[in-house]
């Protein structure tokens, strides 16, 4: 039995836990149950269940007409998802690794993201584009990127990045129901996969039944008074680990999980920085010309006086992600780098 069966258990505990992967699947299954127009397509999403377990069990439950294995033709099947969405279906299409966007980006940023605008709002594209991101397991430069900054940079697509199981379910539900194209980037390291080292926060409580997390709202996952750590995805887990470690040392971190990049919850960021006066952005995407600069710019535009110390950022430097573990971990935003940055900020 898998969790994708109807949850008819009588004695279901309210603290029922799932991995992020299973929570994502549960959201998809519930939406497919609710709406016949929702269907899934992509490479290895059928019998394999998605190579990062993003669609496990869906084929058995919904059949091959609603869970479709495609050829290795991203331009064709993502473009087809766009066309199907234009005609009122609600596809969830998976780009296996975000790193592959190069072969199909035209359909994404020139078609999926622009048709609504170009048509003066007359045509909708209710599509969810899911994709796996992130490194830390030696998959090398072409299979370890995050790239959410690139998608967020281009107008016309919403961008969501869940960090934990409950948000994975809630944001997927919201994404499917949104009439706009939503890019849903899930970090392989938060999926809770049996075959990849996982942070304990990859398993967590997930509400049963309908669960929606609004797109465009960040979450203050740990309130604090000394430093605002704005972050997303796997880095949320690391930031929380560092915050727990530093609290007894008298450094109180407020951790803000962005959850959405487009729309970006600037208000929550500004409110937090307004209180703490210290900003650290932790971003596993590349350092330059991206998300971390955007967050800091939004604070500076509002009022640089909010900051009692220069803003800091921990990101992947402008280098292809190396293969060898010592090299890879030198560039990732590890807990060590986060801890040092927090301590530098508070002047310790």
């Amino acid at each position, binding site marked *: 039995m898998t969790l994708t069966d109807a949850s008819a258990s009588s004695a279901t505990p309210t603290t029922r836990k799932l991995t992020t992967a299973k929570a994502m699947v549960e959201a998809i299954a519930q939406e497919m149950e609710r709406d016949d127009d929702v269907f899934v397509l992509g490479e290895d999403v059928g019998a394999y269940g998605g190579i990062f377990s993003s669609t496990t069990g869906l084929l058995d439950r919904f059949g091959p007409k609603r869970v479709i294995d495609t050829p290795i*033709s991203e331009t064709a099947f993502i473009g087809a998802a766009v066309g199907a969405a234009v005609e009122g279906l609600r596809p969830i299409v998976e780009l296996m690794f975000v790193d592959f966007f190069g072969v199909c980006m035209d359909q994404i940023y020139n078609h999926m993201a622009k048709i609504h605008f170009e048509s003066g709002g*007359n045509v909708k594209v209710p599509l969810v584009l899911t994709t796996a991101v992130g490194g830390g397991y030696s998959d090398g430069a072409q299979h370890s990127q995050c790239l959410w900054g690139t998608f967020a940079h281009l107008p*016309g697509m919403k961008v969501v990045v869940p960090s934990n199981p409950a948000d994975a379910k809630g944001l997927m539900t919201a994404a499917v129901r949104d009439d706009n194209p939503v890019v849903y980037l899930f970090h392989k390291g938060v999926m809770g996969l049996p075959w990849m080292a996982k942070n304990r926060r990859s398993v967590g409580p997930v509400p049963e039944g309908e669960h929606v997390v609004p797109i465009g709202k960040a979450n203050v996952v740990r309130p604090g008074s000394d430093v605002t750590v704005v972050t997303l995805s796997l880095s949320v887990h690391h930031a929380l680990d560092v915050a727990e470690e530093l609290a007894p040392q008298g450094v109180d971190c407020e951790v803000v999980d962005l959850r959405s990049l487009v729309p970006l919850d600037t208000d929550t960021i500004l409110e937090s920085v307004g209180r703490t006066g210290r900003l650290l952005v932790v971003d596993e995407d590349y350092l330059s010309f991206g998300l971390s600069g955007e967050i800091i710019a939004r604070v500076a535009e509002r009022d640089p006086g909010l900051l009692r110390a220069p803003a800091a950022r921990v990101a992947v430097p402008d280098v292809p992600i190396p293969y060898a573990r010592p090299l890879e971990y030198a560039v990732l935003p590890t807990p060590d780098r986060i801890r040092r940055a927090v301590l530098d900020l508070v002047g310790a």
Partner: protein
Amino acid sequence: MEPDVRLGLYRMMVLIRTYEETILREYHADKKPVFDIGAGLIPGEMHLSAGQEPVAAGVCAHLTADDAVTATHRPHHFAIAHGVDLDRMTAEIFGRVDGLGRGRGGHMHLFDPATHFSCSGIIAEGYPPAVGQALAFQRRGTDRVAVAVTGEGAANQGAFHEALNLAALWKLPVVFVVEDNDWGISVPRSASTCVTSNAERAAGYGIPGERVEDNSVEAVHEVAAAAVARARAGEGPSLIEVHTLRLWGHFEGDAQGYRSDLEGVPGRDPLPTYEKRLRADGVLDDTAANSIAAQAHDRVQAAVEFAKRSPEPDPATALDHVFAQA
């Protein structure tokens, strides 16, 4: 072929040609003395379809408003033949508020949900969404078809091949149309394509491929009938290539210095050729021809006037319609 069908094809070709000639005039009218692409009532690029009328008229004669057509950067003939609202299409080309896209798309990005018409300015990239529309039609159990149009240059782009494979694999109701007008801007097909006919490539995907060599609207009509019927019957996609004629430049402002076939072009114009044939067959006489021409003229004029009366969009609305509101 029945006389009224033939007359209908002729009427459609005249309407398209009248439209393109009108847009040509309007486009250039205020870009003098030196051609400034950004100036005038119709700014930007302009890709007109004069000479390619037979493809649109012949294919779209078999379609209803429920069928989808995805066209290219040179979309006017297909939009007109498929029944897109001429007033709103023209207003969009003029960048006005009452345009199909409220002035946001322009001539290469015409979207009309009422007729499931769309176009893409990216070479070959209109094919995959058309495949997706066909997927939706198939899934809903209808006999609707999606017509996907590209030029011959697009047949060397990855999206073309991926779309053919996917549509063939899933037996989708698509009619792939390739307009071979000999030129990918300035590059002749002989310098871009490894085969002499893209209809041959259809065999590589296990689907039927037909090439119409002489830009004849009736030949297109016949070949398209079979392809559309095949799709409606659930038998899968087909490829039709039409050797057609780009009467003018790739875009307006193209001096065509590279074009080695210019001398022969007027003689290959399909419109006078077809008119001559219909007259010879007794299907068309002066009265009918004049009436058709006058109706086309009036319809196009009305569309241009509608466009010119429509206001320009307010800059304050520039950020509107990025996202659909809940």
